[in-house]
């Protein structure tokens, strides 16, 4: 048992001071992995390219900082060939939902037991501040093209839940970088979930985003608690309902509420477990 120790490597992170990514590193490497007692050499952390994708360099397990958008496919390959591994794919919002978007519908339906952690900072940080697929629909976008068409952001939570409808087997959750222990619990559950899991982490980029964006999000954030009424925004057409992460229809309703209106923290959907790739049980 390695519980209690830290899996943070001795490489100094080059993230900006105050960056939310530190919170995720702590949740993953100081808590989730040691808490689960997974030996470090049984863990493979693979990322794409971005500030967020620096993560594997700072976690003292097997790790690969790969190429932009492809962490999810490399993760699946590793898991398939050595099913006893704990495989974590890490990426940014751009990494996962722009260049890598095409891999997700397929990763979900294969339901391979990997855990994806998306660090959603709502911006392309590493390349210095461009619009990302989750960048909120700010005034800026009007300038983005001569043709002023409607360009709302992609909604990763909604897409992941929608993709999960076919299998009803994924684990889809959202945390926030500032609440490390809650995030830890989500990551632990994601890793333990036998099947595909996806955890979105709301995380501030303190350098390239209005500081208000994250502050506002943090303020609005509400925790989902099983059985308790979901706090729906006033603008929503639905009445509040008791949160039930086992019900994909309800998860879909939840995911339709834009993150900027109501950033929900917790498990959106917890699908049926399995198959366990270890046990080679059919699903």
């Amino acid at each position, binding site marked *: 048992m390695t519980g209690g120790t830290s899996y943070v*490597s001795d*490489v100094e992170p080059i993230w900006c001071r105050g960056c939310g990514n530190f919170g995720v590193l702590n949740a993953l490497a100081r808590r989730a992995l040691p808490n689960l007692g997974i*030996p*470090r*050499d*049984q*863990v*493979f952390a*693979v990322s794409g*390219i971005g500030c967020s994708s620096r993560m*594997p*360099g700072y*976690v*003292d*397990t*097997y*790790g*690969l*900082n*790969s*190429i932009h958008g*492809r962490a999810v*496919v*490399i*993760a*699946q*390959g*590793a*898991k*398939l*060939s*050595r099913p*006893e*591994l704990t495989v974590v794919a890490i990426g940014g919002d751009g990494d996962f939902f722009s260049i890598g978007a*095409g*891999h997700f*519908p*397929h990763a979900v339906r*294969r339901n391979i037991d990997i855990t994806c952690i998306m660090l959603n900072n709502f911006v392309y940080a590493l390349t210095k501040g461009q619009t990302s697929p989750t960048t909120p629909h700010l005034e800026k976008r009007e300038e983005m093209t001569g043709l002023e068409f409607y360009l709302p952001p992609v909604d990763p939570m909604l897409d992941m839940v929608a993709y999960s409808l076919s299998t009803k087997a994924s684990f889809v959750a959202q945390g926030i970088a500032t609440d490390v222990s809650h995030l830890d619990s989500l990551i632990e559950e994601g890793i333990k979930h036998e099947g595909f899991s996806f955890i979105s982490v709301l995380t501030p980029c303190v350098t390239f985003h209005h500081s208000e964006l994250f502050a506002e999000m943090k303020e609005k954030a509400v925790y989902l608690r099983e059985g308790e009424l979901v706090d729906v925004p006033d603008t929503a057409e639905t009445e509040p309902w008791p949160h039930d992460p086992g019900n994909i229809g309800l998860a879909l309703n939840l995911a339709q509420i834009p993150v900027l209106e109501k950033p929900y923290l917790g498990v959106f959907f917890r699908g049926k477990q399995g198959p366990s790739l270890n046990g*080679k049980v059919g699903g």
Partner: protein
Amino acid sequence: MKRSVTVGIAGAGGDGVVVLGSLLQKIAATQGYYGQMPRYYGAQIRGGGSAVKLILDGERPSLPGDTLDLMVCFDWEKYLEVDHELPLAPDTIVLFENEPAQEVILPEKSFKVDFSSRSREVTGSTRGKNIMALGLLTRVLSIPGDAVREAIALDEEFALLRDNLSAFEAGEELASEFSFPELGLAPARSASAKTVLTGNSAMARAAIRVGCRAFFSYPITPASELMQEMERELGGGNGVFLQAEDEIAAAGLALGASLAGAKAMTATSGPGLDLMTEMMGLASAAEIPMLIVDVQRCGPSTGIPSKSEQSDLDHAIYGGHGDASRVVLAPCDVEGCYRSIIEGMGIAQRFQAPVIVLSDQWLGQTLVAVDGGFQEDECETAERLRAEGPELEGYRRYRLRDDFISPISDVGDAGLAYRTTGLSHNESGAPASDFETHQRLHVKRRKKLAPLSERDDLVSVWGSDESSRGIITWGSSAQFVLEAVKCLGLEGVVKVCVPELICPLPRKVERFVSSVEKLLVVEMNYSGQLHRYLRSELDLPKGTEVWARVGGRPFSRSELAGPIGGIAK
């Protein structure tokens, strides 16, 4: 009696042309005949033309003749789609079902045979006509009927034939009407049964043999059969097979599997190789073993998917941004297809690099009958270098050693966790952005491949050492060059060099080049890609000739007679 006979068969999609050809080849193989049967088909999925050109040879593996000895035609209109590939000679014997279109000038010995109605009489359906033709052909070619029946009984491959024996026998009976003693095949020199397979299938068998248990791919002509054979092999728990969502994913899945220790592989054709470029660069930079097969077809872009060309060499050698070292192999026949996978997988593991094996549509899809012994040859174990002793302490993934190859641990190996990246990195795998480290790792990744240049065994040279005239050719073109040299009787005059390892370039090629005064390079692509590569690496003789043209049609002996005759002068 003849040593060899070239048979052409043409018809529409539903006519069973390929089945007829394959059965004939397989039967002959049981009697010890070598054979080679390229397929010609068009873009149409159904209803298009379909043709094969089969040589049966009792002495040696050889190529179908330029023209046909015997032709079975079920449909002249479809024949006209492939007439370039199946040219008739004045002495070709033709058996045809319907009256030919005007454009066809029938040779003297042409005979109308009513395969369809006879089949209907015997079997109640016209669909037995190809089996009927088969019966007729075995007789014409003097393949003993007993032997055929014995073979049928023994092998599941002949189930179809067994079920349609009445049609077969009716065909045999037809033989009395069409007896062509001049086409009788002399008994094979060695009666031992030949192995019948395609290059695609040879590659799949080799992959299994060498321990590949993780295969990821995306369908594409003409590589799909390789994928499908791996799917069958690895199914049911024998390994991991996944049809990826695209080629980027196929390469990424293979890379991930390889990091975790699998002998991983993917196969594709040109357009898919393009998409693998970035992942290949990562494999090169982070020194991750990876085997990529490219079954080449006519390019650029979608080109002609069903036809052979050798135009992906440039990309295999130079493709991708940055100086990304890699290894390129190119087999020239079915046995080479097998060997190149064994070797390629071994090289990928030992040298921790991406290895590209260039096959092509001709190699991949042509059914050949050969001595199958190579499948039992002793086989490379394809092991990775492991850390041991003091290296286990403070393990550094990219530790610089004299041979530039660093012990690698697989994800999951106890106590040897490391982190790596496609960023420029130091010996520990941590990102580094200083010039010295960057240069040092480039040197490492290039120099580690140096021993491959000494692999003389991966370069074949035919002909006499003393010849001052040489040809260098590669891939399936080599078969045509060797055949043409033989036909021209120039074996004593011209020697031929076929590098199976192309990059890094073996020194044996350099020695070959410096041993000749006149050099000819033959390849099937527009721009002479091998020639340009050789020229960039070696001093070629002044006036080196190049015979390079696009694919879409196999070389013929007569086409090559010009250039080969030229340098022989």
